[in-house]
């Protein structure tokens, strides 16, 4: 062990400084115990970052361990930069989702942009070429001008970054609910394609191998707020120390090409993004995975500004940087590849046999931790979990006790209200700002049930989707967790894909509050049940806690990113009605539930009742039946029934594609035991609207799988109406009105003057 002493000028370690670094007294004592001495300021900074929730998962690890993570085709499960599954033909798919909620709340444009950049790097550091981006976004009500500012800033940030790097943004979801007013959720998912033999892991190996910093220089961006604690900081110097990270998609593109070339070259043994907690966490994690020691000299790290302290260099979150372990003697070859892309690489340390994590500043040792305990010895908590009685009461409330509004006498009115609810309405306003066709693989882009990308050189395609209904999870976290997985699986299956595996992003409130921890525990348990039943293991993900504002926590929102595989391009299926005269069938039961529905929220302003039941075995049977029918060639279209219920799903089948509108005639009049509004707008799970030229075959396949299936109507290509016959009444909705409600709502709202506009809002920078 080395002699580690404070640097001249380091602040004294005081209880206040410890608290500002987010460490509890017990955690600090644990640190002192590990070191056998008082930590230096630099060491305190390192531990503060590594033991943060973001890096350590200290509140979620025990829970996450309960999730299934294996399948014969899983090549890489949780614990790496991204999960990887094999799709045959020697090819594999790498994918991961991550949150950038807090940065996006502060500066929506850069926050979202750097979120996209980070997740791209996580995927290409596995040796995969990114082929698609998805985004799962949650905002408050669009009536709030600040929400419009956040929404447009986030969308522009996602677009500018992904568009410039040249990765198509193909799918996702956007939900608007007051629960997210002060705390938007911005989750980005990236999917990449690789040859199995190119898979590389971020595992430091080989004593004597050089550690290199690659890509952009290190500045003072994004340094943990705690770094502002040093005593000599005045307000003036604070202004010089920006915390916000700025993304440079141009450098990212170069880094992407250079990294893939590096991985192919065989000159390196490991590569990892310097993401959250920058150099510190990337180097510590690579050392831990390889069970080796590392030493890093911060004076060798290329910096953007002079006078940066070891603390700042270690904790900087400057973007577009990589940490690489090269093979000894190949340093120049590595530099050569980077130079081709106008990037630089500097040797900043090496892999050592001695089991320590050591940071030097020239000859002076400024931080040293024993072995891999830096990562493995972080605390782990299982706080109290207790359901909020207020939420339990809400769940127990009977939605059918809410009387219908007078306008509801005409269900067409209700339907239009729902189609123009921003959560349901077309999000084309957003995704028209995303390049969705670059790289020429996009078969189904934004707006479909899931996006579909062909896999060049094969007859296969992959389907991808993110999903989560936070309202359900709020009302019943276990059921909501199940539904999030099941809905993502259904969406993927509707395109003809077999659901394969998931990544997840757990967006929750403060876990030290028992009611939040209860939600986390229960939601993950529900996810696990669904993943096991559907055979879709978890290959990784991200946890974002403390999503709270003075007005409370966000809805617990475990976003599921699902990847599915389509074995034959001819199986690719679209959501909208395709052929005149096709029979319309409902796979699954009509249901009749209303709890937690968009109908209650939009029409009655209520969030209550039990969310719809979710029987995961039945979901599995439903998906199997659908896929069998698709493979049999008897399915013209398939669309998942979700927010807004059957009436909204049918409307979307008719009008979601403005280029191919169809009318339809539906008869549900035999279901007299159910309320009309529950038939139309209830959100019972496990239902898919299918159109088919051979309905008997579909019914036969469903019957064999034990899945209810009823013929409910037919497609009328030339009709300009959606007509639905109900037990107690009938409704006729002119398609023109449905189209207006669905397609024109969000553009209309966003055309309102943004009261909180910035100049950028009026003249976007770097938008091409």
């Amino acid at each position, binding site marked *: 062990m080395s002699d580690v002493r404070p640097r001249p000028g380091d602040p004294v370690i005081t209880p206040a400084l410890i608290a500002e670094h987010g460490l509890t007294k017990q955690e600090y004592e644990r640190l002192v115990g590990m070191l056998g001495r008082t930590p230096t300021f630099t060491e305190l900074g390192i531990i503060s970052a590594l033991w943060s929730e973001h890096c350590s998962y200290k509140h979620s690890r025990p829970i996450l361990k309960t999730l299934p993570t294996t399948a014969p085709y899983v090549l890489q499960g949780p614990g790496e930069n991204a999960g990887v599954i094999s799709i045959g033909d020697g090819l594999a798919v790498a994918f991961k989702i991550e949150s950038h909620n807090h940065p996006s709340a502060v500066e929506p444009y850069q926050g979202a942009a750097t979120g996209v950049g980070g997740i791209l790097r996580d995927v290409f550091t596995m040796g995969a070429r990114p082929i698609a981006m998805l985004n799962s976004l949650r905002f408050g009500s669009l009536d709030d001008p600040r929400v419009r500012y956040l929404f447009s800033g986030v969308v522009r940030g996602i677009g500018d970054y992904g568009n*410039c790097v040249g990765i198509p943004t193909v799918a996702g979801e956007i939900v608007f609910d007051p629960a997210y007013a002060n705390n938007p959720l911005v989750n980005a998912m990236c999917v990449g394609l690789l040859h199995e033999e190119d898979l590389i892991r971020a595992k430091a190996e080989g004593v004597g191998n050089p550690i290199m910093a690659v890509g952009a220089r290190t500045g003072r961006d994004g340094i943990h707020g705690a770094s502002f604690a040093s005593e000599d900081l005045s307000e003036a110097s604070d202004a010089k120390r920006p915390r916000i990270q700025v993304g440079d998609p141009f450098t990212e593109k170069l880094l992407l090409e250079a990294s893939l070339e590096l991985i192919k070259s065989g000159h390196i043994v490991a590569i990892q993004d310097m993401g959250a907690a920058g150099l510190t966490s990337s180097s510590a994690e690579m050392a831990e995975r390889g069970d080796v020691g590392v030493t890093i000299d911060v004076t060798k790290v290329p910096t953007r500004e002079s006078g940066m302290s070891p603390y700042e260099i270690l904790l900087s979150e400057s973007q577009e940087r990589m940490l690489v372990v090269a093979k000894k003697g190949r340093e120049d070859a590595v530099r050569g590849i980077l130079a081709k892309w106008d990037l630089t690489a500097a040797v900043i340390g090496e892999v050592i046999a001695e089991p320590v994590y050591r940071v030097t500043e020239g000859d002076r040792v400024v931080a040293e931790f024993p072995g891999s305990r830096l990562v493995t010895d972080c605390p782990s908590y299982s706080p109290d979990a207790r359901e909020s009685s207020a939420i339990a009461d809400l769940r127990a409330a009977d939605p059918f006790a809410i009387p219908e509004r007078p306008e509801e006498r005409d269900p067409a009115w209700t339907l239009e209200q729902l189609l123009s609810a921003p959560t349901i309405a077309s999000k084309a306003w957003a995704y028209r700002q995303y390049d969705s066709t670059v790289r020429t693989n996009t078969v189904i882009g934004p707006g479909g049930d899931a996006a579909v990308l062909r896999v060049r050189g094969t007859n296969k395609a992959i389907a991808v989707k993110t999903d989560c209904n936070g309202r359900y999870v709020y009302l019943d976290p276990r059921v909501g967790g199940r539904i999030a997985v099941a809905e993502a699986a259904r969406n993927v299956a509707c395109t003809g894909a077999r659901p394969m595996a998931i990544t997840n992003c757990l967006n929750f409130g403060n876990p030290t509050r028992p009611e939040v921890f209860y939600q986390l525990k229960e939601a993950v348990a529900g996810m696990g049940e669904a993943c096991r039943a559907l055979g879709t293991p978890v290959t990784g993900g991200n946890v974002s806690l403390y999503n709270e504002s003075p007005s409370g926590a966000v809805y617990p929102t475990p976003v599921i990113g699902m990847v599915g595989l389509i074995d034959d391009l001819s199986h690719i299926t679209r959501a909208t009605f395709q052929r005149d005269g096709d029979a319309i069938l409902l796979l699954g039961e009509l249901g009749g539930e209303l709890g937690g529905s968009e109908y209650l929220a939009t029409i009655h302003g209520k969030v209550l009742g039990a969310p719809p039941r979710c029987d995961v075995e039945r979901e599995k049977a439903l998906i199997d039946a659908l896929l069998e029918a698709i493979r049999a060639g008897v399915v013209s279209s398939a669309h998942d029934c979700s927010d807004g219920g059957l009436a909204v799903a049918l409307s979307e089948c008719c009008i979601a594609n403005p280029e191919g509108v169809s009318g339809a005639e539906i008869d549900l009049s035999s279901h007299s035991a159910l309320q009309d509004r529950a038939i139309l707008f209830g959100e019972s799970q496990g239902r898919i609207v299918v159109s088919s030229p051979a309905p008997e075959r579909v019914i036969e396949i469903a019957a064999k799988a034990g899945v209810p299936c009823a013929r409910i109507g037919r497609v009328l290509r030339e009709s300009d109406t959606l007509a639905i016959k109900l037990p107690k009444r009938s409704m006729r909705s002119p398609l023109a009105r449905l189209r207006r409600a669905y397609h024109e709502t969000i553009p209309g709202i966003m055309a309102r003057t943004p009261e909180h506009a910035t100049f950028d809002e009026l003249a976007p920078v770097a938008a091409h």
Partner: protein
Amino acid sequence: MKFGIVTFPGSNCDYDAFQAVTDILGEEATYLWHKDHDLQGSEVIILPGGFSYGDYLRAGAIARFSPIMQEVAAHAKAGGPVLGICNGFQIACEAGLLPGALMRNLHLQFVSAEVRIRVENSDTMFTNLYDRGEILRMPVAHGDGRYVAPAGVLEELEAEGRIVFRYADANGSISADANPNGSERNIAGIISEGGNVLGMMPHPERACSALLGSSDGVRLLESILARVAA
């Protein structure tokens, strides 16, 4: 026939152009590195889409100073075919291979959508397999696609039949609604005085497969083949 596809730092449609030429057209293609001075015997040059040099300062402004652009300019001057798509169109304008400029879209937003364009001149080396007035479907994806030029230049372009494509609706009418970026006179693509440099904002290389939505771009590439081979 050999196609040379220029890769600038930040190009991101070079791969799509390469695939279209090799996979769909079945011709030879090679990437031309921006730092090189060698067209490697390419008979047709494609300036692909993307964000060359991040498009910082102005779209295409920095790319035109690349070493390879000197060779591309010489190739164009000698009558060699050059196809500039999206960012490539911007670069061709900045480099003076085509008149006018491309400015920020009128609505100030990036636009990614399938558009329809009407073939205005089917007598060029890039459009000879189309019919005049034919409506093509192709994706656009750009933030700076609003074509502008001085009135005199526009008149000249009109008079000489150098407006090759205009944004149109499904019925072929040239309306403001069909114009995704506010381009003057709905201009989607123009050709040089010599008829050998075509610049266009829509992406023909992304419209080469019915599976992906449209194969209307294939004939553009085939037109070059037909004309140059003849």
